[in-house]
Every structure is written in C-alpha cells, then in structure tokens.
C-alpha cells in the first residue's frame, strides 16, 4: 500500500497538466491569502514598527542577527520550541512534519516524480498528520481540554485544522479506494479536492498564516533578549549571588534552586 502512487493512477483519467495547474493555483492562493492576511491584520506593519522603535537597547551586529535567526529556525520552528505543553508540542510536530512530507510528496508526484520514496513519504506524512491532528482535535484543543466543550462543536478557529484533517483523511481514503479499484473513489476524490481547496483558499479566514507570523514573533522575542530589553520583562534572578545576599531574600537562603513546577504541575482544566 505504501508504494501505491495515486496520482500516477489518476493521470489516466485527468490530464497531468490539469493536476499541475491545480497545484500551482493552490500555491498562488496561499501566497495571495497570506499577503492579504498580513495587510488586513497589519502584522508586518506591527513587526517593523516594533523593530524600529527608539528604545531597542543594544545594537546587534549582522552576525548576531544571523545566529538568532538560526536559533529561531532550529528551536522555535523546526522543534516547535515555544510550546510548554509536551503533548501539544508532540502533536504539533507530528502534524507539521506530516503536512510538510505529505505536501512535498504530493507536489513531487503530480510533477512527475517517479522515485519509490515519494509514495512512501506521501502515506507516512499523511498518517503522521492524522495522528497529530486528531489527537489535537479530540483531546488537546484548549476549549475541549479546559472548557469541557463537546469534541464536535465547530467554530471559526477550527477552519484550518478541520480542512487540513479533511483534506488528508479524504486523500488517504481516496488512494486506498483507488488501489482497490472501487468506484466510490471518485466521490471521495471530489471531497478531497473540495477540502484541499478550502484549506489553501481559506488562508485569510483561517490560522494558516500562523506559520509566518509565529516565527516572526519568536525571532522578535530572541532579539529582545539579546539586545537587553527582554520585552521589558524583569531580568533579576536568584542565580545572582548579590541578589541572594539581600536582606529580603532571607526566606530563600536555604531553599533549593529548583523548588518544583508550581502552577505548571497541572494542566489548566479546573474551570
């Protein structure tokens, strides 16, 4: 099953040029939707205004900025380092890498990639995405985990994750039916195209654009730590011997440096 390339089979019924055109159209929709989103929400404007504000602290050299950008890319983007909640982080990593593998494999196969690795990546990526996505949707979503809402209640915020899950779910079912030669494959294929169009065409109305603004925010946070402004957050800590010796810190004189998790010991779910 993992070696089955559904797009090779599909090219017998739909001309490859149409498939390629659809993929290009979706890429254009994502680019246009993201630009619209940036202009509409003013996120880029906010980012650059914030960047140019006068009290930026110490000026950073180009080398430092490159190093910060590399850290942001590796820790915050590639490893989803901003998540405090371990389950959410794992679910996000599964969904993110599953999506990347699935999309890259789809594009490769539509544009004529015949290597054995593409169908495998397409299936494995899809399954990773479904595991991470459904885990998030049914168990981790904050209004489900914390507010006790029904797992099936839909709202605007779900447009992205649901269209993503629908697209990949229908895609895998369609490929499976196609491999078995079932006539129902065409019905599921129509749903697959519909869900994919909503996913990529719905960028201005969904949180698809978070893949652009979240790294920008993570980068800004790291820059503010490096230039000493720390987003105006306090910088005094108990690690400093001078602070430990202060009269008002007497209560903590013999306390361990790690006093336990505090509020983080429990996931927030008591309201």
């Amino acid at each position: 099953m993992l070696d089955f390339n559904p797009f090779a089979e599909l090219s017998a019924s739909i001309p490859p040029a149409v498939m390629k055109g659809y993929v290009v159209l979706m890429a254009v929709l994502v680019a246009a939707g993201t630009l619209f989103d940036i202009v509409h929400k003013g996120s880029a404007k906010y980012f650059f205004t914030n960047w140019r504000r006068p009290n930026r602290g110490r000026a950073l050299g180009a080398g430092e900025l490159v190093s910060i950008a590399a850290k942001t890319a590796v820790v915050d983007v590639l490893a989803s380092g901003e998540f405090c909640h371990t389950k959410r982080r794992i679910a996000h990593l599964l969904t993110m890498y599953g999506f990347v593998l699935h999309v890259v494999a789809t594009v490769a196969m539509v544009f004529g990639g015949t290597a054995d690795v593409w169908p495998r990546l397409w299936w494995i990526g899809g399954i990773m995405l479904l595991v991470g996505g459904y885990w998030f949707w049914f168990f981790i979503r904050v209004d489900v985990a914390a507010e006790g809402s029904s797992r099936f209640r839909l709202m605007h915020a779900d447009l992205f994750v649901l269209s993503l899950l629908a697209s990949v779910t229908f895609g895998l079912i369609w490929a499976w039916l196609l491999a078995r030669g079932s006539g129902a494959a065409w019905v599921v294929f129509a749903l697959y195209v519909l869900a994919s169009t909503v996913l990529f065409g719905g960028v201005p109305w969904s949180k698809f654009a978070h893949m652009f603004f979240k790294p920008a925010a993570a980068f800004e946070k790291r820059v503010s730590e490096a230039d000493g402004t720390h987003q105006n957050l306090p910088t005094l800590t108990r690690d400093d011997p001078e602070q430990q010796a202060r009269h008002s810190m007497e209560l903590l004189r013999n306390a361990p440096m790690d006093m336990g998790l505090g509020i983080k010991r429990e996931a927030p779910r008591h309201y």
Partner: protein
Amino acid sequence: MPTFVYMTRCDGCGHCVDICPSDIMHIDKTYRRAYNIEPNMCWECYSCVKACPQHAIDMRGYADFAPLGHSVRVHRDEQKGTIAWRIKFRNGTEKNFLSPITTKPWGQAIPKLKDVPAPSKEMRDGQLLYNEPKWIRMDDGGLRTLKDARLTLKKGVAY
C-alpha cells in the same frame, strides 16, 4: 489597568482562564487565543499576568495615569521561588525588584492563635498589631518613617 493579550505570544494554554478570579479571561472562538472579555470588570490582580508561561499578558495603563512608554512587567519564577518586577517610568527611570514568593500551600499558613500567649497590658495599649513587629520586619529597628530617613514631604508632584 485591565489586561490585554499579545496574540502572537499566546498559545492558548488556558492558565490565565483557569486562574482569573473574575472569570473574564476566555479563549477567543476565532483565533483560539486568550483575551479579556470584559476589561472594565478586571480588578487588576495580575494573577493571569503572573500565570502566563509565555508572558503574553500585559496591563494597559489608563492614558491619564501612565501614558507613553511606561511598563510594569512581572516574572513569577516558581521553580526558583521568586517573583521579579521591572517597572519602567515614562521618564526612563527603571526599577527592578526581586522577592521571595510567600504563598503557602493550602492549609499551611493558619496561625495557631490558641497557643499564643495572651498580650500583656503594655502590648494591648501599644500601637502594634498581632505579630508586629516580627511579621512586618521591624525587628531590626522601629517603624520606618520619613523622619527616620531624614526626608520631608513635599507639596505637589515631586520628580
């Protein structure tokens, strides 16, 4: 000074919703991020600001009180047992504070009043309240006053 949330920093974990004593921190239905549903009902307790693991919540000062470039931010580090404040005034002055967290586990801070000896007549007639000066840290000297510090009260606004 009601709270507001930096949407790009919030990851919708719900700690603020959990801790808000006024029940006004909620998760937005469109973006799945926290927001203050009723800023004029915010009693500015800073609970959510301290609870937020991403430092995504801040206070908006009223324009007549704290305009232009002020900032009051806090980091409650429970692992180290400290709470730190950084206060920036609009004239650029900055104050930094670091103190121990004195919150006790539930049921651990009940004074055993039955075991405390009754106050003497002198104590009854004195100005100090129960457990003063010990609990307000006046044990290394008397009450700190402007006079002790050789300061005088100035009329009007002093910078």
